[in-house]
């Protein structure tokens, strides 16, 4: 239950957190037929602090607002209360140091794999030759160097998601947020990509800060340094669990006693929330 921050914006070491959400609140005003002026509170008193280079999994029952929080970090949605700091500075709108990977890939279907990965660099005005080099390097890193000229829909789901990860990594963001990126994939591909994600994360020179939204307990334990479990709506962090599994992790990590212990603990917390929701 470490660092369930309420008021502090600095970590124990005195450095500003990479990402800090304090008392964040978000209310959707519903417009549309029959909705009247009803408002839905999605997040309320949401506190989360993430340190530089940390891998945090955000876990919660469906509809708890985890994707909403991710969208707020990505700058796609606004919030009503509290504050959100990135490197100690307030975040409003899209931040160019955050990379986002969506569940359904969101690749541009008319662009080749190569051009998709180059998109973020192109937007930043990187010259053609340089962005070609960078994109080629990142595509090699995710193991897709042979598919650079393919259109996304010619690839399998797992490959598409690797392209999406490559696209988010190409412009070297400091924070990477992933919204249930492997949820639509079959079990084998999912485990393969979990390993791949860890390998990529560990090979990149300076470790990126990762926020990984998922509804799978196993995925959260296997990947993360810490697991933040959310309550049902209006969502806030219910507890944060440390995952003390050694790195680099491989499939053996899934068979350790520690893994089983964490799994039971997280499952119990989630179970509570699901039952409260009934």
């Amino acid at each position, binding site marked *: 239950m470490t660092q369930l921050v309420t008021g502090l914006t600095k970590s124990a070491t005195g450095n500003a957190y990479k990402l800090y959400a304090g008392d964040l609140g978000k209310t959707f005003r519903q417009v549309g037929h029959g909705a009247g002026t009803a408002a839905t509170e999605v997040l309320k008193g949401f506190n989360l602090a993430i340190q530089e280079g940390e891998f945090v999994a955000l876990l919660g029952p469906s509809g708890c607002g985890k994707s909403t929080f991710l969208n707020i970090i*990505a*700058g*796609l949605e606004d919030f009503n209360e509290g504050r959100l700091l990135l490197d100690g500075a307030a975040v409003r709108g*899209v931040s*160019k140091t*955050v*990379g*986002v990977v*969506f569940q*359904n890939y*969101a*690749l*541009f*279907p*008319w*662009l080749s794999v190569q051009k998709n990965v180059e*998109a*973020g660099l192109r*937007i*930043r005005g990187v010259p053609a030759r340089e962005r070609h080099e960078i994109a080629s390097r990142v595509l090699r890193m995710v193991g897709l160097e042979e598919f650079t000229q393919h*259109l996304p*829909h*010619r690839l399998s789901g797992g490959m598409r998601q690797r392209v999406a990860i490559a*696209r*988010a990594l190409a*412009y070297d963001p400091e924070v990477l947020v992933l919204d249930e990126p492997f949820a639509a994939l079959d079990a084998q591909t999912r485990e393969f990509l979990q390993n791949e994600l860890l390998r990529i994360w560990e090979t990149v020179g300076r470790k990126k800060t990762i926020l990984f939204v998922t509804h799978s307990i196993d995925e959260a334990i296997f990947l993360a340094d810490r697991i933040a479990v959310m309550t049902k709506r209006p969502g806030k962090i219910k507890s944060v669990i440390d995952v003390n599994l050694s790195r680099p992790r491989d499939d053996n990590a899934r068979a350790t006693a520690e893994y089983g212990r964490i799994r039971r603990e997280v499952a119990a917390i989630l179970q509570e929330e699901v039952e409260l929701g009934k």
Partner: protein
Amino acid sequence: MANDISLQTATVKAMLVRDAGGKSIPSIQSLLKYDKYIYGLLGLAFFVFLWWFANSTGVLNPKFLSPPQTVLMTLIAGVLPDGDIWPEIWPSLGRGLEGFAIALALGILGGIFVGSFTLLEKVLAPILLFFRNLSILALFPVFLLFFGIGEESKIAIVAWASFWPIFISTTSAVKGVERILINAARTLGAERPYIFAHVVLPAAVPNIFPGIRLAASYAFTALVAAEYLGATEGLGIYIRASQERFEIPSMYAGILVLGLIGVAINLVLTGVEQRVTRWQLGITSR
């Protein structure tokens, strides 16, 4: 003519039979590839035959319907560089293409703009609904008032007529662009102008094209009507003048040229469409 058809059918059958014999496998493929054209030619031949038949038997008054061979000869003589149709083609084609190009630019820009801003669309909805359903013929006097009897009014009429299908299809195509693609571009750091040009437009293009093709046919319909109103040169006025002089084969030759221009433009547009929407192969049933 009738003999031609049976001859053609016989040739096709003969080719099929030979292929069924398994001697030349590639030609089965090549024949299947061209089946669309073979059937099309059959249909065309049948149409020409009916035309000829109706004329020679007098089912339709031969004074009003010239036989196909006469029309064809008039057409060929007419479109030669010293023929009488040749000098009429460019003025019409120029006006048509100019008006169409204006409509294309305004329709796509306006469509993206209106389709992207819900509020704007709501504000403009009643006005747009009024104009898009208004007969272009009713507006002719207005165009004549503003642009005079010269080229400008004709180009403006063509532009107006072809603007609407492009504008309407663009507006709805833009609204149909997947939100997630726009969000992805935003998270990559893209600003509005980039998103319009590099996300909204390419994503919408496949659904804009039906409007563009419709607009091309509207353009030439409106053009001919505009030329009937008053022009010194152009295919529309040529067709009308031929009828007034009772040079019926010339009238049909003019109609044929106009129709062929329409077919050519449609072919060009289809080619462009296939090029720019090639990425959709395998996603949709195109």
